[in-house]
Structures are given as structure tokens and as C-alpha cells.
């Protein structure tokens, strides 16, 4: 078992003929993912990295049985790409595209949710479960199969932490990058139950950042429902109020969304919160040792 993706995941790449789309199609395949189709309107009949390209997601689904999508199309067209995926019956959509207007995402989120399609992202690295499948852009090299689950709002920082876990001799069950936008398809609170119920996950790493109250919501969920150990890191202690720190969602506004508030909430919920990213892999090892899992 794993979270969101597994060996039955069959990926269609929307925007496969672009630079990012084609490059990451190769990487997903190298990870072992079944990338079965690509979509770029007007490019049907061609191939990218050995993957057949179709004009529409519906055709891709009909012809290849695709059940997950990875969206690389530019922001102005992302809403349409998502609607197309949902209407074609795709159940998991990872949106890598950044700079999607949040007003578009509000529509995308509710449209998908009401039809039972799960969105991860936008502006996110995606989902990977080593040995099974990857939908997104997390670098393959940082992974190795194991029993640590990871949920994160950032990209590179997560790669670094996941890599550190690997270097410490451990591996990951599933890693989900939620994305740094204010409106995301999957939040910590959405993803926590999956890891709670995943028999392959022993411990969860939560990587948060300033802005919003997603980490506080997560802490409340952890306090009430989550039984596995949690190690957390929150980026942005040094960020001033009112400035967007790279991510559209990373902003302390009107006194809400500080790193301090998030750290305190997670600590109160029993999580071990690291001060430095490089502490996290060590904390993971330590907690697992304490619990006798290692």
C-alpha cells in the first residue's frame, strides 16, 4: 500500500511537448512510473520519450486507461486543463504549474472536489512513492524505499530533507509536496489521514512555512487523530510581516501565519519541531530509535 499513487497509477502528462513536460516525463519513467499518455492539442500522433501524444485527455483515457494526470501547461490554461482532466474521469491531478490565479484555483478546487477528483498543487513538486510511482517533479535521486512519510509545502527544501533521510540510511513511504500557493487542492489536514491509515508509514515529516493556518489546522488534527510520531520544520522565522517570500502563499498578513504560531501549535500537538532543516533527518532517526523502529 501507499498514499495517492501505487503500481496501478497510469499517468497522462498534460503539456507533454513542452520543455518541462518532456523532461519530467523521462524522469517519471526513470522512477518506474507508468507514464501512458501525453496531451498537447494539435500534436496527436507524435511521441515524447516513447509516450504517445493525444489531442485530448478523454482520448488519452479511452486509449490508455490513464487514471492520474500531471499538468505542466502555462498558468492561463491550467484551469481548462484541470476541467478537462476531471471531465475525463481522472482521479488524481498533480498541478506543477505555478502562478495560477487563486480565483481560478477556487473554481478548480470545488469543481474537482464535487466530482471526486483529488488535486495536488498547484505550484507543487507532486507525489512520489519510491518503488511504485511518481507524479510530479521531485528529483528521483533523493528517494529510496522506506517507511517515512513526508508532507511539505515547499520544493527544494523538501528535496534536501528527503535526501538527508536517505543519507541517514532510511527511506520514504510516500512524499507529497502540497505546493506554496494560498489555495491548494490538498492540505496537510487532507493528507494526514492517508498517512495515519497507511501501514507502510511509521513516522511523518511535516515541512511547513509561514502564511495561512494550514500548519495550525494540521496540529489540531494531529492532536486529535494522528497516532504516529511527527517531526516538523517550519520555514520563515526570519520573514517580516506583509512580504511574500517567494511562494504566493508565504506571507504573514494581519498577524496571521507566523512561524512561531505554527511551531508552537505543532509542539503542543506532540510533534518534534526542528530549528534547522539539517536537523530533520537526525530527528527522524532519533524518534524512530526511541520508538524501537530502527
Amino acid at each position: 500500500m501507499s498514499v495517492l499513487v501505487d503500481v496501478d497509477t497510469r499517468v497522462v502528462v498534460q503539456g507533454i511537448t513542452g520543455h518541462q513536460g518532456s523532461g519530467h516525463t523521462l524522469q517519471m519513467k526513470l522512477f518506474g512510473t507508468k507514464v501512458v499518455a501525453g496531451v498537447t492539442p494539435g500534436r496527436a500522433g507524435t511521441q515524447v520519450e516513447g509516450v504517445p501524444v493525444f489531442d485530448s485527455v478523454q482520448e488519452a483515457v479511452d486509449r490508455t486507461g490513464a487514471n492520474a494526470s500531471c499538468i505542466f501547461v502555462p498558468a492561463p490554461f491550467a484551469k481548462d486543463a484541470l476541467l478537462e482532466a476531471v471531465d475525463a474521469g481522472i482521479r488524481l491531478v498533480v498541478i506543477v504549474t505555478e502562478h495560477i490565479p487563486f480565483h481560478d484555483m477556487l473554481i478548480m478546487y470545488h469543481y474537482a472536489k464535487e466530482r471526486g477528483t483529488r488535486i495536488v498543487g498547484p505550484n507543487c513538486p507532486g507525489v512520489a512513492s519510491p518503488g511504485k510511482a511518481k507524479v510530479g517533479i521531485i528529483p528521483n535521486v533523493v528517494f529510496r524505499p522506506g517507511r517515512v512519510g513526508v508532507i511539505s509545502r515547499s520544493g527544494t527544501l523538501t528535496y534536501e530533507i528527503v535526501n538527508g533521510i536517505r543519507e541517514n540510511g532510511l527511506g520514504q513511504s510516500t512524499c507529497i509536496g502540497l505546493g506554496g500557493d494560498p489555495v491548494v487542492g490538498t492540505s496537510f489536514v487532507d493528507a494526514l489521514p492517508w498517512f495515519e491509515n497507511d501501514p507502510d508509514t511509521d513516522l511523518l515529516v511535516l515541512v511547513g512555512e509561514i502564511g495561512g493556518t494550514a500548519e495550525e489546522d494540521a496540529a489540531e488534527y494531529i492532536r486529535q487523530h494522528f497516532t504516529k510520531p511527527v517531526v516538523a520544520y517550519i520555514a520563515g522565522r526570519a520573514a517580516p510581516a506583509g512580504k511574500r517570500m517567494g511562494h504566493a502563499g508565504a506571507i504573514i498578513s494581519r498577524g496571521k501565519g507566523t512561524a512561531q504560531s505554527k511551531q508552537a501549535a505543532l509542539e503542543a500537538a506532540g510533534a518534534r519541531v526542528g530549528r534547522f532543516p539539517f536537523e530533520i533527518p537526525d530527528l527522524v532517526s532519533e524518534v524512530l530509535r526511541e520508538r524501537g523502529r530502527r
Partner: protein
Amino acid sequence: MVKLAEWRGKEIFRKYGVPLPPGRVARSPAEAEQWVRDGSVPLPCVIKAQVLAGGRGKGGAVRFANTPEEVRAAAEAILALEFKGERVREVLLEGKLAIGRELYVAITLDRSARVPLLLTSSQGGVEIETVEDSAIVRQPIHPFPGLAGYEKRRASQSLGLTGAASKALSLLLDALWKAFNAEDAELVEINPLAVVGEGLVALDAKVIIEDDAAFRHPEYSEIRDDRTPLEEIAREKEIAFVQLDGNIGVIANGAGLTMATLDVLMEFGGHPGVFLDLGGTDDPAKVSEAFLLMAQARPRAVFLNIFGGVTRCDTVATGLVQAMGQIPPAERFPLVARIRGNNEVEGIEILRKAGITALSSLKESAQSVVAAAQGPPPAGGRA
């Protein structure tokens, strides 16, 4: 994030039908005087500095006038101000109204619920952050059917409005809802919303437009903001660049990693002065451009922190070395690089050849850059 000055916010409000006091914008004392002389703005009137910072009332940036001469004098005084670092370029003149109660109304985003949120409070006219939570009514608005009548009735109730004033609120909320969506706003706020007789009038306007929707709104691209000049350049070049109060420039790839790098620097006593996120770029030219922008901020030292996951360390290093060559000697600064991940060895080698020391430990490199920033200052000023 495009924060609009009050008068621009009110232009939007007017477009959607939010009731406003009679008013005009003036860019000179003479123009201000003319608006009252020709009757465009009735007397007595209020003259307000058009700046983005709050607290104008206490800061002398809002004045009242009863005669054309007083208007001219007030406008002259305000247009000469530099308010919290902003030069005042425009004043807004508005007729004074016989104001009853002052209310608060806003629409913003509820990130957790992923819906727009309608906020109402009968305690308007003060900063909403100072109002107790229990005095603010929050109603989530589902984006699909949009603002419903019963939600507007509840808003009326929360504000103690009945009869004609309640109907006025209903129309005003429809207008505000339309503006929030059609203009891709992050925030539309009226504070205070004044009860004037049986009607309602928006005395202030706070509108923030979302950056990511700029492709739908070219009309906002020219609007000045509270960005610094360098941030403005960065925005045009699509580089995530934020100026802070310290003296160490931080370049990293990925917003989370860049923030974490600031955090580590702070822990070791450093003061970050620039946040520069390279994002997922691979392109040496783009890296070089970003680095030259960093140089313009005149940092005491710069910390480059790269984890090569999607990107490659060697291409980043190449861009960096190219940029260093273009910085005049007088403007150079100590550089500490920490590189991990894809093609890490090649990247370190490229930097070494250019005389830049690259470490692989985040801790050591952070300590090293903090020490460098405490050394003798470079030729120019602070970051």
C-alpha cells in the same frame, strides 16, 4: 500583490456601483483648489494623502478645509509630505458627509476552506486587527452560486441595518462581490463604511489585486506599489526578490529553501538583507541576471545556497561566475556558496576555479557568511 491607493480602489468601487462621497483626485494645490471652486467637490471637504501606509489620520496626512483657500493650503502641505517613506503624489478631496455609524465590510480569501470570506463588523473606523473576533461576523461564500440573498440578510443583521439601509447594503455587497471576482482581488475592504441617513457610503477603499492574474489585467501593470525600486525591477524580470532590513544577501533555489536559509543565518547572528529565490531555473543567463540584481542591493556579504534537485549545480555555478565578472571591483562582496545535489562536484569545481569557496555544510557556510558580513564594509551602502 498590487496594493491600490485609496483613489484607485474607489475608481474600482465606482465602476461596480459602490456608493462613494463626491470626490476628485488632485496632483497639485492649484488642481485641488479648482475642484472645489468648480463645484466638483463640495465644501467643507476632507483632503487625504494617497499613500499605501496606514495611520494617515494620526500622521497629518488627512486634513479638513472649509474654503478654497484652506483646500489649497491643505493640499500644499500634504503634497509636500513624505509619509512613512512614501512621497505623496496625489491627494483625494471628498465632500464631508453627515456620518452616522461607522461599519466594516470586506471580502477576502479563506485559505483553509478555499472560499471567499465575507467579513462584517459594526465596529468600523478602527483597524480591523484591533477588533475582537467576536465582533466580526465571518461568512464563507461558495464561489459557484456566489453571494446569496440570505447571506446578505445575515450581514445586514450583523450590522444592525434595517429597511432602506439594509437594501443599500444588499446592493453594495453585490457590487463588492463582483469587484472581488472580476478584478481578481485578494481583498476588497471598506473601512469605514458610513451610515449616512438611510444610505451607505464607502469612506475608504482598500483593494489588493492578485499578481498571478496580471495576464487578465494589464491595466494594473503600471501601478506603483509598495515595492522598492529593486523589487520593481525584479518583478519585471520575474525574479522572486524581497528586500529586508539586514546586510546579507541570500540566493537560494526554491522559496522554502530560501526562507530556511534566512532562518539559519538569523540563528547564527546574521541579518538577512535580500531574499532571492532562483526558483527552478537552469539557465546560466537567468542566474547571472539574478546575481547582478543582488549586487545592486549592495550586500555586505552574499550566501548562495543551492540544492540541485531538478536544477543542476554546475549550470547555477556557471551563471554565478559569469555574473561575478561583470560586477565592478568596488562593488564586490564576499561570497559564500553551499552547493548540494545534482552535479555538485562539477559545480564546486567551477566555483573553485573562479576563486569562490564552496562548502557543503549549511551550518558551516552560514557561520562563515555571518563572519564575512561583520568584516570591513564594502565600497557602497547597506543591502
